[in-house]
């Protein structure tokens, strides 16, 4: 296993270097996706299966598709200039030296740090009974540190709004018309298993690694597949029901936090007998909002519509 870890670290370094020194954008994107695969394996070796799952779904999977989609829409030839490596100029040399110095200092700091008792983690594990879910990570995300997760939902919404304002939306027909019926049949065949896996991952978050973010990313993947094969396309029309679904997660999270104040006396505290159904409800609404936000980041439009055959 030590040998495996060593090889993993070596390959990671190689690919990370390749990401920043690749001659063309596509090469960098490919290196980045494979780096995501190896990162997921590293999280597994670091005993963080939750992070491995998140990296698989968001880092390597969805981000890879997003990057490939962006690359595809760039005019041919942009980002292709050959750059000599490594000593192109003094600026790069200074930056590289700075990075090496920072790495040495960080390694020294890490070496000198003595681990104290993990007080917060121990307290959280001791209170797991009251959290309403069996999985410690989900308990921390949705209950003990619910405020953080709520603000993360806000960040995701702000990102989407910013993207919609800045990005030129894909107009109808901007996607290349499929020359064969194969991808569409593939998408129709693949859609049910992907949706099922996404919903299962959200549900599994209650007792094993998984949850709203990972499941939501898989659901978004299903939407991206529909958009890629032209079964679903972005529409420039505003869509009120869609917007309601986009804010559903954050709204429900906040509402359940506020409305239960008379019962519990604290913001975002949940009464004991309601906590499990509430957690599941919040988890699923968060997953729906996350999936739609991620998907609309891909299409870059304020609305979505079905393509009539």
């Amino acid at each position, binding site marked *: 296993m030590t040998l495996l870890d060593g*090889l993993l670290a070596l390959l990671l370094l190689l690919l990370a270097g*390749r990401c920043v020194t690749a001659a063309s954008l596509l090469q960098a994107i*490919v290196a980045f996706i494979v780096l995501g695969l*190896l990162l997921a394996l590293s999280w597994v070796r670091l005993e963080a*299966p939750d992070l491995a799952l998140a990296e698989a779904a968001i880092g390597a999977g969805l981000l890879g598709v997003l990057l490939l989609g962006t690359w595809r829409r760039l005019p041919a030839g942009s980002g292709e200039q050959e750059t000599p490596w490594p000593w192109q100029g003094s600026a790069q040399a200074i930056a590289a030296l700075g990075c090496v110095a920072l790495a040495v200092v960080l390694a020294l700091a890490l070496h000198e740090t003595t681990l104290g008792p993990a007080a917060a983690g121990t307290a959280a594990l001791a209170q797991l009974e009251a959290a309403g879910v069996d999985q410690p990570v989900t308990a921390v995300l949705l209950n003990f540190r619910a405020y953080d997760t709520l603000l993360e939902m806000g960040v995701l919404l702000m990102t989407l709004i910013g993207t919609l304002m800045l990005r030129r939306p894909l107009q109808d027909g901007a996607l290349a018309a499929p020359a064969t019926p194969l991808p569409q049949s593939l998408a129709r065949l*693949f859609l049910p298993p992907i949706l099922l896996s996404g919903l299962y*991952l959200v549900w599994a978050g209650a007792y094993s690694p998984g949850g709203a973010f990972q499941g939501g990313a898989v659901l978004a993947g299903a939407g991206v*597949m529909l958009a890629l094969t032209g079964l679903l396309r972005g529409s420039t029309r505003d869509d009120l029901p869609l917007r309601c679904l986009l804010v559903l997660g954050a709204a429900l999270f906040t509402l359940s936090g506020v409305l239960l104040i008379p019962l519990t006396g604290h913001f975002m505290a949940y009464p004991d007998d309601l906590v499990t159904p509430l957690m599941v409800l919040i988890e699923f609404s968060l997953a729906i909002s996350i999936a739609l936000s991620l998907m609309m980041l891909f299409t870059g439009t304020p609305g979505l519509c079905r393509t009539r055959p």
Partner: protein
Amino acid sequence: MIVLVLDVACLVLILLLGLGLIRVIAGPAAADRILAIQLSGTTTVGLLLLLAIRLEQPALIHAALVFVLFAALLALGFVYGTEHER
């Protein structure tokens, strides 16, 4: 015994992953690189499944499942992009 077999299998797979990187880095065509991603993805799935047994963490099977799903998506995302061949 079974632990040793699993360890050796993991090692072989990571070595194959490393070999697959030759196509990721050398190319030469874009399609070679995308196929190399698919190869690395399949190898990673195999590694995850082996590690799930080796480390007794059944949750890793979830991660393997997610990789399988997204590997198909990555191929789709690329296929719809070959109108300007690079």
